[in-house]
């Protein structure tokens, strides 16, 4: 009987299964990478298993599912991170946490000294000056780092760069020029702050640094896997990938490695293709899925971002009076695209930030369903940050799902209250409770690298709704810890059409667990984000978090 498959029984202090037939267990039997049984100590005898009690004092929950992340997070760390909030690099070292412009400059001076090639640009990322008092970063600050090397500091919002004089010169931005996106000081001179994709693109071309546009490679995917695994993730989307043959080759190579710790679910960026080519490509990709690499999602982008004032808002528009944002695709075109992918049986994940964009996308999905009735499409609005109950009710009617950007409540909630939405609409920023009350299947996300992937933190945001200033934004939109845990596991899996395979600890599903020091359902809710992650189990294989 030596070839009889090995059964391992993991024992834990508590196992939160999200299986309604046995919500709490203490043991889980695993065979062939899948859950064989859940229950108590009797499983060892019942299934002839080997007891693995290394997690005996810990709490197991279903492995976390990051429903909207970007594997490009794994590439970011080749450049210095200069954010206000500390973040963890792929090697586990803390990075950033700089509380002033002076600290950022001092750090980058150290980095600059260590660079050997004088022509290599110094590009830093994650700068977040909205938390600083006093003057904004200027070209004079960055010229202190180097007068001869190009220096770029990218803001975490994704919409602004600060550059030094060397970059201004190389990009052809004369200090006397006056173009939209070039910020000038009281004397009319350029401050080195570049706003918007047009002028930023020009600076990126001058430095030759792709930044976020770097091509995803196997080492970058490995780094993303480490970052995500360390916070308990066992499945992550890569929610905007061109999925060229090169991209797919890198994804396959990385996920085929025996010690690659997460399952990846890339979404095909539809705008990379003509409609016909995109339909053909996604159909082809669907045949290439493995247990650790699942194709099938199609990503559409309808508008921009709220903090960048490029999201499309309904009346009364931006609180500070800024003009309405941009359609990234014309409403009429969106109808054709949604209808074509829906009609061909595909699964759409649609980026909408502003409420007008969410309303439009919902309308277009409704029209597509009228043209091609189909159950269980699970088209999902991603971000959907300003939707109110009216939009959620329609989404429910059409069978749509939502993945809300709960981390925004903490990171940008105060900005939204002051500038973009004002005090009333910010109460339903990422309205998790309303979505659930309306019966819309819910996931919540980080959009990493925009905010760090960490489902504990995302749960904490949805449960507490605390802003960076420590204020509760919209107490009635808070959800329970159980609802939040569901949203980062089974709920997210549902939006990916993977809920039959993962997202809960049930017989037949992948043995994907997050191993925690404590139970997120019973700790003080304001400490959910601080519960240590001990390890993950993915397909029965243990990956330690340290």
């Amino acid at each position, binding site marked *: 009987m030596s070839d009889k498959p090995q059964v391992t029984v993991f024992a834990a202090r508590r196992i939160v299964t999200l299986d309604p037939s046995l919500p709490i267990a203490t043991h889980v039997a695993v065979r062939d990478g899948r859950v064989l049984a859940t229950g108590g100590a009797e499983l060892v005898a019942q299934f002839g298993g080997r007891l693995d009690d290394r997690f005996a004092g810990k709490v197991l929950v279903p492995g976390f599912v990051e429903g909207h992340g970007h594997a490009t997070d794994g590439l970011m760390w080749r450049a210095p991170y200069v954010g206000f909030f500390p973040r963890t690099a792929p090697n586990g070292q803390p990075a950033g946490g700089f509380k002033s412009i002076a600290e950022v400059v001092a750090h980058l001076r150290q980095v600059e000294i260590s660079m050997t090639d004088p022509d290599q640009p110094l590009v830093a990322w994650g700068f977040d000056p909205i938390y600083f008092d006093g003057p904004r970063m200027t070209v004079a600050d960055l010229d202190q780092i180097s007068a001869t090397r190009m220096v770029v500091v990218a803001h975490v919002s994704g919409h602004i760069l600060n550059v030094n004089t060397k970059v201004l010169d190389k990009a052809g931005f004369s200090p006397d020029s006056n173009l939209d996106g070039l910020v000038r000081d009281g004397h009319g001179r350029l401050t080195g702050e570049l706003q918007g994709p047009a002028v930023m693109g020009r600076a990126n071309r001058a430095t030759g640094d792709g930044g976020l546009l770097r091509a995803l490679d196997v080492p970058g995917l490995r780094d993303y896997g480490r970052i995500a695994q360390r916070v308990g993730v066992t499945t992550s989307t890569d929610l905007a990938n061109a999925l060229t043959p090169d991209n797919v080759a890198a994804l396959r190579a990385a996920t085929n490695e025996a010690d690659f710790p997460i399952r990846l679910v890339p979404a095909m960026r539809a705008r990379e293709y003509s409609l016909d080519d995109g339909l053909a490509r996604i159909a082809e990709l669907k045949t290439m899925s493995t247990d650790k690499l699942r194709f099938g999602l199609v990503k559409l982008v309808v508008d921009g971002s709220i903090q960048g004032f490029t999201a499309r808002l309904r009346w009364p528009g931006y609180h500070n009076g800024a*003009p309405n944002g941009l359609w990234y695709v014309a*409403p009429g075109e969106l109808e054709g695209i949604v209808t074509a992918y829906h009609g061909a049986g595909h699964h759409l994940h649609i980026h909408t930030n502003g409420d007008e964009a969410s309303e439009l996308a919902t309308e277009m999905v409704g029209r597509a369903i009228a043209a091609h009735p189909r159950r269980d499409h699970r088209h999902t609005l991603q971000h959907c940050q300003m939707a109110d109950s009216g939009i959620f009710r329609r989404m429910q009617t059409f069978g749509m799902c939502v993945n809300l950007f709960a981390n925004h409540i903490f990171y940008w909630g105060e900005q939204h209250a002051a500038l973009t939405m004002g005090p009333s609409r910010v109460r339903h920023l990422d309205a998790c409770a309303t979505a659930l009350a309306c019966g819309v299947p819910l996931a919540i996300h980080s959009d990493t690298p925009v905010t760090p992937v960490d489902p504990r933190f995302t749960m904490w945001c949805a449960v507490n709704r605390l802003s960076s200033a420590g204020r509760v934004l919209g107490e009635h939109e808070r959800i329970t810890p159980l609802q939040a845990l569901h949203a980062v596991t089974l709920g997210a899996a549902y939006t990916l059409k993977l809920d039959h395979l993962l997202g809960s600890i049930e017989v037949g599903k992948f043995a994907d667990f997050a191993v925690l020091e404590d139970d997120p359902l019973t700790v003080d809710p304001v400490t959910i984000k601080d519960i240590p992650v001990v390890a993950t189990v993915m397909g029965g294989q243990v990956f330690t978090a340290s």
Partner: protein
Amino acid sequence: MIPLTVIGGFLGAGKTTLVNHLLSSAHKRWGVLVNDFGAINVDAALIAAQDGQTMALTNGCVCCSLGDDLGDALATIAMRQPEHVIVEASGVSDPWKIAQLALIEPGFLLEPLVVLVDTPALLAQLGDRWVGDTVARQLAFAEIIVLNKCDQASAATRAAVRARMQDLRPEAVLLEATGAVLAEATLSFTPASRPAVSRFYAEAVGHHFPTYALPAEIAFDRDRLRAVLGDLPRSVLRIKGVCQLGADAKPVLLQYAAERWAFTPAPAGLPSGLVVIGTPELPPQSELADQFAAAALD
């Protein structure tokens, strides 16, 4: 310097049809940047070579994908040495954002911003809850507005559209067209028959736009010049030419359009002096000359 014309307009206005005309019946070696390569429809026999991003035609024209970065695309197309570059803005983008970036592209001179409208559909578009503001924004800085598809619009509709254009953008020249067929001269401020080297510097009157030259050999105080440029009336559509800025003896090329301007290193061989192009309400030459003279270095 290669003339560069940005063409904007909402979906269905006829931009792609216009590009297809230009490429198929080329009197010039056009270089065209388009958003949707797949929409280009030229006779297969005309295609000399094609890869993913570039299509070269047997008539000397070249068509490239605009991509995410205008500068990249312009650098690519400049290598083909086109006589005139056309940039087709996407149907939802603001063509003025693209046009002003062209002000700092070395080697290009910004020609009028041409915006096409779908005349029979325009009033409904402007009133549409979702796209009304996008369509209005596209017209806000247009210098030539082409009322296309006029054959499909009644006289009353055409008159109503003209009236709306007068409200939205009184500075623009209005032209009527059918099937996106335009005179080639529509893509330039000055008619193409003039000798290429001298045309910006001749005391020439364009066929649509009053044009004059300001005195040459001016070196400006940068702060006072900025004040002058910042205060120009909307009737000034373009200023372009070579001047000197501050104590720096290196000549620079100034390109001004609609309250935005850029200085780039002057290409060799261009004489100094500024050319002003405007609407019929352009201030008299002497008035602008005085303002600029007051900004001269002491």
